[in-house]
């Protein structure tokens, strides 16, 4: 098994773990953290696609790598918006959790 | 010459790794936050310094060597000052010990 496949399996577990955290934590901040875990997992998938495409003297395919950089910036922007939404929720209601519908 | 430089590198990097280990042992064994802080920052910064020293023997060119030293100086400066802040936070009731 190559290192790329190893990290690919790692990213598969990471996406599952992140999704689990996103679904099961009532605290919004924990959901945001879990969302970032999913993001990292997805970026790692792109990363192994890039690594497997190493050719022409490059250690990895630069196109998926460039997509990851774009993705990281957008993930940061959405995290920042989510955090400010949470802070607003806290100021308005004094709560930091989303109640479950059960 | 090559062999001598490689030997020096192994010696210095090995010593550096040892200090990282020492830092962690201190962290596990020391009883309170402030002394753990001692163990951690001093040993780790020394460990990093030794590793940088070891890598200097392998450095290609002056700029690469200066950059390595720069990384260490930056870590030292940041570490020393940030540790001061940690210690204050700990003293102001960060730890019940």
């Amino acid at each position: 098994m190559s290192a790329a496949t190893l990290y690919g399996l790692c990213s598969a577990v990471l996406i599952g773990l992140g999704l689990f955290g996103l679904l099961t934590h009532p605290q919004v901040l924990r959901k945001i953290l879990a969302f970032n875990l999913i993001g990292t997992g997805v970026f790692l998938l792109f990363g192994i696609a890039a690594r497997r495409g190493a050719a022409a003297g490059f250690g990895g395919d630069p196109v998926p790598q460039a997509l990851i950089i774009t993705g990281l910036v957008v993930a940061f922007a959405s995290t920042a918006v989510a955090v400010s939404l949470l802070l607003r929720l806290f100021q308005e209601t004094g709560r930091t959790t989303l109640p479950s519908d059960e | 010459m090559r062999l001598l430089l490689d030997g020096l590198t192994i010696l210095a990097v090995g010593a550096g790794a040892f200090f990282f280990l020492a830092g962690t042992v201190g962290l596990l064994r020391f009883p309170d936050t402030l002394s753990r802080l001692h163990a951690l920052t001093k040993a780790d910064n020394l460990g990093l310094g030794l590793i940088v020293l070891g890598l200097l023997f392998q450095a290609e060119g002056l700029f690469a060597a200066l950059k390595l030293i720069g990384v260490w100086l930056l870590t030292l400066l940041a570490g020393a000052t940030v540790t001061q802040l940690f210690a204050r936070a700990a003293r102001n009731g960060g730890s019940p010990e």
Partner: protein
Amino acid sequence: MALDIFLGLLVLGLAVWIVSTRDTLAAAVEFVAFGLVVTLVWVRLAAPDVALTEAALGSGLTGGLLLGASTRLARAETATSGERHGAVLRLSAAGVCALISAAIAALVILLPEPAPTLAPEVAANIAATGLENPLPAVLMAYRAIDTLLEVVVLLLALLAMWSLAPDHLWSGLPWRPDAVGRDGVLTFVAQLLAPVGILVGIHIFWIGSVAPGGEFQGATILAAMWILVTMAGLRDMPPMSRRWLRVVLVIGPAVFFAIGLAGFAIAGSFLGYPPSYAKQLILTIEIPLTLSIAAALALLIAGPPERAAQ
């Protein structure tokens, strides 16, 4: 390979910990540690540009943002740390997530051999951009529209954040911590670290054309240093209504867009660069773009206006 297995286990271990810790603050610290290990993984995957972005943005700035939020919400979070959804929901969520993980893992194992790659095309066309590092070449030429829109996304995110402010605070100043905890040491750190950091940020931006680095990585470091100076109380953030601030925010995408339009005339397509001075044009875009990105990132960290402008 042994190192890769170890790094993979470390990543997964930290991820499990982040999801399962009760204390939110501890989870945020673990996230910073997680980002650091992921940075090492990017180096192992021969993606140093991505490693730089992860170290600066994914771990550093995002970590700082989440830590800041969790300390601000520490009391409320501690009160709800025991709150959990019911066992049925947790179990079914675990099942669904395990299925999704298994499906992705199967996909990873069944990836086609040999892997499809665009690397040869990049190698064949990189000379036309005048750059030596393939990533900025892809970001600024082949996928230039993505990059332009990405900066627009940053500005839109900032607008979304600002619009969360109550009406009377619109065009006010972002939240600022009290002077508590701010003292000589913090001032000293900021005075010492900020100039060094600005230098490193410019260095990372500048080497981008020949080695890993570039506008996003450089801008992130600049943004972090701006926030550091604000935290230390050396300079306050400007009110949102400042004209210069808004000019800095839009100048990068504006120059980018203008040169893109000029591409119709000089190279026959939107964002086309004539090969003879492609590098000069890309640099002309990148310098204002770095300033705009740095300002947008710093303001996203600072948050919506919460104080009225004096």
